[in-house]
């Protein structure tokens, strides 16, 4: 009897172990099933490269949204990546351990601040500032980039810090023995050794900014147009899905799922790159 119980447990656990993979496949299948036929119907190039988004009359070009997502993500990286990596280096190499042990968890704690709160701050503080000092409506590519750049800081710092602290101490000692200063040991030895982890942190942060929705809806302005200046309002792919979901039916709803397909594919590719970068480090 006992043996049977064990086999049963093993069977159940084996089935349960598929839950994450099954969920992933279910999500992929549903998003693609709803979105992919629509892309075929409208035509890939019309869907991806046409600039007119007007679901009421059957025009479904998401080009402005693709451009907007790329700009905003790129802008966020311009702000988040240097600050985050600088923070990680400083905390690891230039600050006494006890101080780092306080600051790192504080920053990781802040990773939990809900994205809507960041968005709200963007609306209340950042957008008026941009409107007054740089012109435009305030809600803009710039505002979204800054907010997203801040939001990804904990991700970049936390993963980069792990990568940098994984560099063996003998590397540092070797550099010092050759007469290198702290900074020389950092940029000549440590950054090279921790490179793949740092790159992974930045790519993961890119995926996060690309996928962020609520904060972006609040600060980006949501106008469907290819932006010409950083102070122009834009609508990203994620914002497009969230804004129109509530009242979209028929073709318009399918169009949103097709937007989801684009987002899904791009983010999976980014995460794949980040994962293989981190794996490469593990093997060494």
């Amino acid at each position, binding site marked *: 009897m006992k043996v049977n119980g064990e086999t049963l447990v093993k069977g159940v656990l084996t089935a349960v172990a598929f839950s994450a993979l099954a969920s992933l496949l279910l999500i992929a299948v549903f998003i693609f099933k709803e979105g992919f036929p629509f892309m075929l119907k409208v035509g890939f190039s019309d869907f991806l490269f046409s600039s007119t988004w007007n679901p009421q009359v059957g025009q479904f070009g998401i080009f402005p949204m693709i451009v907007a997502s790329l700009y905003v993500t790129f802008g966020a990286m311009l702000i988040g990546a240097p*600050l985050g990596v600088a923070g990680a280096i400083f905390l690891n190499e230039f600050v006494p351990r006890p101080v780092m042990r306080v600051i790192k968890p504080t920053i990781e704690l802040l990773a*939990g601040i809900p994205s809507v709160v960041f968005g709200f701050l963007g609306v209340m503080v950042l957008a008026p500032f941009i409107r007054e000092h740089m012109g435009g409506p305030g809600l803009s590519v710039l505002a979204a980039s800054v907010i997203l750049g801040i939001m990804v800081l904990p991700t970049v710092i936390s993963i980069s810090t792990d990568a940098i602290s994984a560099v063996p101490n003998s590397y540092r000692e070797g550099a010092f023995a050759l007469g290198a200063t702290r900074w020389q040991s950092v940029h000549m030895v440590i950054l090279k050794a921790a490179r793949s982890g740092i790159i992974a942190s930045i790519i993961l942060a890119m995926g996060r900014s690309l996928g962020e929705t*609520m904060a972006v809806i609040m600060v980006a302005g949501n106008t469907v147009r290819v932006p010409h200046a950083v102070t122009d309002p834009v609508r990203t792919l994620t914002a497009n899905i969230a804004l129109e979901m509530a009242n979209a039916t028929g073709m318009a709803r399918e169009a949103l799922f097709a937007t989801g397909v684009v987002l899904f594919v791009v*983010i999976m590719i980014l995460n794949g790159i980040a994962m293989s970068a981190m794996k490469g480090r593990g093997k060494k």
Partner: protein
Amino acid sequence: MRVSPKITQVLAVTVLGAATILTVAVLVFVIVFVLVKGLPWVDWEFLFSYPQDMGKSGGIFPTLVGTFLLPLLAIAIALPLGLGTAVYLTEYTRETQLTRTLRFGTDCLAGIPSIIFGLFGFIFFVVKLKMGWCLLSGALTLAIMVLPTIIRTSEEAIRAVPNAYREVSFSLGATRWETVLKVVLPNALPGIVTGVILSIGRSIGETAAVIFTAGSSLRMPMSVFDSVRTMSVHFYILAREGISNENAYATAAVLIISVLLVNLAAYTMMHRFIAKRSK
């Protein structure tokens, strides 16, 4: 001209230090700003009375209940699945192509943005399964979303249990499952709880995946098939539709405090766990 290494060293420390201080300052500013603007409006009355006028005045009681129930139900669904997966991966199998595929699936699931979960939850639970916007649809969606976190933290916690414990248990004639139940899981418990708390924190702060699956009704939910509005969603609607800035700030303050407390609990738990293990 070559700049002396001493000068570049000083320069580097200054720049890096300034960047770090800026980073910490910005993040701290976010919290302080919201608390300073919001806390003056928060009192018992605000927490425990019903909203009036779509939230223009009155309190946030139903959203507080929603914020409590939704993550709880999500965890109730995700924990057995996540923990079961972790136990299978660590105790019942070796590294094979299958486990690598399962882990890859978990990693991919972790990378999916929340709006995609919202989109999926809406079309699958709300529309296809005809459950409508309700507590259960929201909880199922959130459960899938936090599943990777629970699997990973549980797996790490279980792996940290020394093999000697298992060997002793086997030598006493215990079966694998008895060993898991009576030896492995109790010892891995703090790590597992950490993962659960982190998942609760993420669920509390989540908006995109919740608003399309659990809906945004301000009524008190009476069953799992009633629509609920969480604090995050309530705050989003108040802020975005400009219903009331005071109430938005106040809700944001309550929201931030809840999330920070939950994350702090997770962190303390994890720290104790690590301290105990390294002894």
